[in-house]
Every structure is written in structure tokens, then in C-alpha cells.
């Protein structure tokens, strides 16, 4: 993550670590190997195995799981093969939802980060502290609390009605609005913090220079500030987009679980009736692949930027 924010910080090797890099990297390699590479490999292998009824796998190679994802042969499997839209539709909905969450988080998160970064240095930590307070509480509890707040008989509707703003409660629970509210609330700091880190290092003399050149505030913002803090914005967007994509607490608790998200689709394969582990693994692998492609494109664009800029 730091690599995205601090460009070209790799010239700073000191003689203390010279020649010991591998030993010093061991703990990190160990953690990545045990907790990341091995589980992903297990998932990859399982996605190509045969389903055992009610969970587990039979050690026979098959492409059945991927076939089920992409190809529709009707309920009884004897109709001519068509493209299967069911799962692509679930992916599409999850992507759209993550995209919206990202945009909302940016629209609120950027001004917030700007505000904090332009306070006196002493009070900045206080504002950051305020941002992090809700995150001392478990995500599940925060999501359930949100549900209590916005339900038809909840305080929000009661206040609105007692002030005479509305006559009947607004149904907010079990709607897309509720899902977005939940995601926004869950992931806002992931947007604010990286942008804040970028703006804090931004040299405000540049804004003054732009003003001296008769640039108005908006032009300064779009032509000077945003390009300068772009790495922070992109980091924030990725940090909000990716967890929103796999989120299922907000859709289940606030959205009423009426539609599968990618997360709940995978969960159902492991906890549901027939326990189709290979299919669950295949869905996860497909999601992983898509995210990797997005990140690769980003990394390429980033390196092109760097080469052009220096």
C-alpha cells in the first residue's frame, strides 16, 4: 500500500540491512506463504475437483464448477447450452454496489480529508481520532445498530414524524439505500485516511502559485490539487471498492438478504444444503482473477505515469 502512496522510495537502503534482506524478510514471507499463498492454492485446486454431496470433494479433476458458472443448460441440464446469466448478474450487482459505495465515500471522504489536512497540525490528530472512534466497535454491531436507527419504528423516522417533516414513516430498511448507507458507513475511513496522508504532504504553495496565475478555486482543485494527491485517491478507492465487493453483512442485515451478493453466494456453497465446495472455490477464483486484472491495469497505468513524470 505504501508503495502506491510514496513513489520511488527504494533508493534508501542503509548499510545496516545490506545483505541481510532475505533474513529480515523471512517473517513477512512466512506470513504471506502460510496465510495467503497456501489457502489460495487450496482454493485453486478445489475449484477443479469433483463435488462430494453435502460438502467435501472427490479427488477427480473436472471443469464442472466453471461450467456451472458460465454455461446454462436449463434446470434439468438437457437444454442447449446458453450463457448463464444468473451468476454474472450476481457479479454485476456486486460490482455496481461497490462502485456506488466508492463514489459516495469519495464525495464525502475527499472534503473531509481536505478539511482535516488543512487544520493546525495539533488539532489534526484530534479530527483523525474522531474519524476512528466508531471503528472501535465490531462491524457486525455497527451494522445492526444502523438497522435499529433506520427501521420504520426507529428513532430517525420518529424524529422526522415528531418534527412534522413526514406523516408516515419512510421505509428505508431492506432497500438499496440502506445497503449503500451501511457500506458507506463501514468503509469511509478507508477513503479518508489515504487521501489525508496525500493532502498532508501536498505543498500548498502550489495552490497559491495557481492563484497568482489567476486560476480560480475550482480550476486549482481540479488542475493542481487532485492531480497531486491522485495516488492517495486511487489507494482510497481501491480500499473501499474491494471490501465492498465481497461485503455481505450490509446486504444481508440492511438489505434484507433478498438477493445474493458474491459474498453470500460463496457462503451458501459452504454452509448451505448441498455444500458445493468446488463451485464456491471457483466463484472465489473468478472474483480473485477479476480483481487482479483490475489491479494490474492500475499498476501499469501507474508505472507509465511514473516514467512519464520523472
Amino acid at each position, binding site marked *: 500500500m505504501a508503495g502506491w502512496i510514496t513513489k520511488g522510495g527504494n533508493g534508501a537502503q542503509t548499510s545496516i540491512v545490506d545483505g541481510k534482506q532475505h533474513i529480515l524478510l523471512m517473517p513477512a514471507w512466512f506470513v504471506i506463504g502460510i496465510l495467503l499463498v497456501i489457502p489460495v492454492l487450496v482454493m485453486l485446486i478445489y475449484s477443479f475437483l469433483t463435488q462430494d454431496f453435502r460438502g467435501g470433494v472427490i479427488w477427480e479433476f473436472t471443469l464442472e464448477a466453471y461450467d456451472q458458472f458460465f454455461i446454462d443448460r436449463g*434446470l434439468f441440464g438437457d437444454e442447449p447450452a446458453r450463457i448463464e446469466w444468473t451468476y454474472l448478474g450476481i457479479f454485476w450487482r456486486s460490482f455496481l454496489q461497490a462502485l456506488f459505495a466508492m463514489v459516495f465515500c469519495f464525495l464525502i471522504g475527499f472534503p473531509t480529508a481536505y478539511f482535516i489536512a488543512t487544520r493546525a497540525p495539533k488539532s489534526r490528530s484530534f479530527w483523525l481520532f474522531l474519524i476512528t472512534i466508531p471503528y472501535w466497535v465490531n462491524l457486525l454491531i455497527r451494522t445492526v445498530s444502523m438497522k435499529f436507527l433506520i427501521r420504520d419504528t426507529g428513532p430517525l423516522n420518529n424524529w422526522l414524524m415528531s418534527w412534522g417533516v413526514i406523516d408516515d414513516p419512510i421505509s428505508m430498511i431492506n432497500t438499496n439505500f440502506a445497503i449503500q448507507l451501511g457500506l458507506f458507513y463501514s468503509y469511509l475511513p478507508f477513503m479518508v485516511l489515504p487521501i489525508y496522508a496525500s493532502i498532508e504532504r501536498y505543498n500548498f504553495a502550489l495552490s497559491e502559485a495557481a492563484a497568482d496565475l489567476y486560476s480560480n478555486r475550482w480550476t486549482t482543485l481540479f488542475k493542481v490539487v487532485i492531480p497531486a494527491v491522485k495516488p492517495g485517491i486511487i489507494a482510497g478507492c481501491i480500499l473501499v471498492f474491494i471490501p465492498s465487493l465481497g461485503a455481505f453483512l450490509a446486504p444481508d442485515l440492511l438489505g434484507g438478504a433478498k438477493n445474493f451478493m458474491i459474498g453470500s453466494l460463496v457462503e451458501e456453497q459452504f*454452509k448451505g*444444503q448441498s455444500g458445493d465446495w468446488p463451485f464456491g472455490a471457483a466463484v472465489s477464483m473468478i472474483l480473485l482473477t477479476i480483481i487482479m486484472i483490475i489491479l494490474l491495469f492500475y499498476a501499469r497505468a501507474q508505472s507509465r505515469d511514473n516514467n512519464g513524470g520523472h
Partner: protein
Amino acid sequence: MRKITMSLGAAALAMSFAQSAAAEKLTVYHWFEYIPQELLNEFTAETGIEVVMDTYDSNEALFANLKAGGLGSYDVAVPGDYMVKIMNDEGMLDTFSPSELKNFGNIMDQWLDVDFDMGRKSSIPYQWGSTSFMVDRDVYSGNIRTTDIIFNPPSELKGKINILDTAGETLAFASLHMGFPQCSSDRAQLKELSEMLETAKADWASFNSDGAKDVLSSGDAAAGMIWNGFGAKARAERASLEYSYPDQGYIVWMDNVVLLKDAPNREAALKFMDFLLEPENAAAVTNYARYTAGVKGVEAFLDPELVTSPENNPPADAPAGTFIEVCAPETQALYDAIWTQLKK
């Protein structure tokens, strides 16, 4: 739930220190919030056997964990009826003879020869109950003894219905509504079932199982599928709720204490089963969980409110409940596809 397990674990640990180092141990794998801690303490006091308990939240989770290597670390578990059969078919259960349990005769006659364990060779009744739905009578005062309330709701209830987020129970209930067998492989029936569900879904507000009580007692939902004991707790919080025994039928289920294969302490497991077959102890579980025991002579120990509660006493003219059936793998795959189609 982890907190519950932890506190129980801590209690068990505290007890183990209180007792001699040679104390015997019984390892129970149980549903969450389904047995009062005082009862476990009493068992320890009576027999000197310390109880360690882990919990699960669905039959499928229990099965998956045992299949993934949990067998051999637990003495007893508490699967539902159809899961007893599945576990038995998988060879996960040990058998006992009636003579090994001195309280075997306390099992109610109607629960002796059950389809899922003929003659009770591996299991004893724990609690049984039904799955149906509740309606807020302040919102809808018409006839509620019909599954139309859920699948073809009157206008007052449209958009205010909660469905259990468990494919097995919800699809079985939908099959009852249509009058179809639970494990049908008939194309026309399955297509009709799937279409009926997709139409009905437009009138549903949410899918929620653990919150089935909360959505009703808070008023978020005006009707919702629920288990009868859970429903009794909902009515305690919102008096206008009424549990329905619909004419098309409803689901009955029974949770059973089973003797697991490779139990580390088979003797203690049998003692625990005997303990739970004592009417007083079975009644203690019922008073806690608000379902119904399958043991003779519990009446004297029951909370009087339970004896007459509408959730536990179907009206005289209500049809008998239906147990969930175990479908063959090919058929189950069709129902899974219908569920995915419904929630896509």
C-alpha cells in the same frame, strides 16, 4: 455465539479446577442457546463428570464440521430429524441397546419408532416443535390459517413479510403450499414451484433466520416464518402476534441427542442421555427453549404458561405436521438451483 461458547468453556474450566484432577469429561456439540447452564452444572454435581460444550448454528454446520474431522472429539451432538438419518447413513453414529439407558422407557411412545431412527438405536428425543409463521393481528385480522399469507399475501401484508433464510425449510413449506411432494423431480411441478416463489418474492421484505423473532417483535415485518418456540418469545415482546397452524400443513421437526461414533467417553455420553430423559431435566430444557419435550411425565415440572401456549398447542382441527425429507443428490441439486434462481 462465540461469546456464549467461551463463557460456557470458562465455566467448564472453572468447574474442572474445582474438581479432582481425575475428573471425567463429557464433550457436547450442541446448538447455540439451547440448554440452560444450570442444567449442565447439575449434571456435573450429580455425576462428577465435567461438561465441555461447543456450539453450532445449523444442522449443515454440524455435519460439515464432523465430516471435516470433528468425529472422535465429541461424545454427543443434537442434530435435527433428517440430519440424524444423514449422519447415520454416513456412519457417524454409534448404537446403544435400550437396556443401556435406565430411563429409555421415559421416551414417549410416539417418538420411539421414528423414520429417521427406527426403534431409537442411536438417538433419544431432545425437543420438538414446528415451523410455520406468525402474523401481527393489529395489521391483518382476516383468516391466517392458510399458507397464502406467505405465498399469496393479502394487500395489508404485502411488502411486510420475512422469510426464513434456510433453503430446506422454506422450500419444504412452499411445497406444502402447492401440495407437491418435498422431493419432486417432476418438471412441471418444479417449474410451477419456482415461478410461484418468484412471484411471491415481490411481496417479501426480507430473508432472515436468526432475526426471525426480532423482525416480528420490532414491527419491521407484519408476518414472518418462524419456529414455534421462537414465536412464543416474539409474542412475549409483542402481544398482537399470532402463530398459525395452516390448513395446508406445516413443518414439524425434532432435535435428538445422538451417540457419536468414536466417542471419547461413551459411558459419560450414556449417562448424559439418561440425565436428559429424566422428566424434570427434560422440562428444564423446555422451560428454557420454549419447545416441547419428547419425554413422559414432564407436565408437573413445566412452566404453566407453556402448557396452554397457543404456539405449543395446535388447534384440534389442525392437520398433522410434516417432517423434512432427505432428497437424493440429483433431486437436491434441482432444489438448490431453484433457491439460487430465487435469490439471484
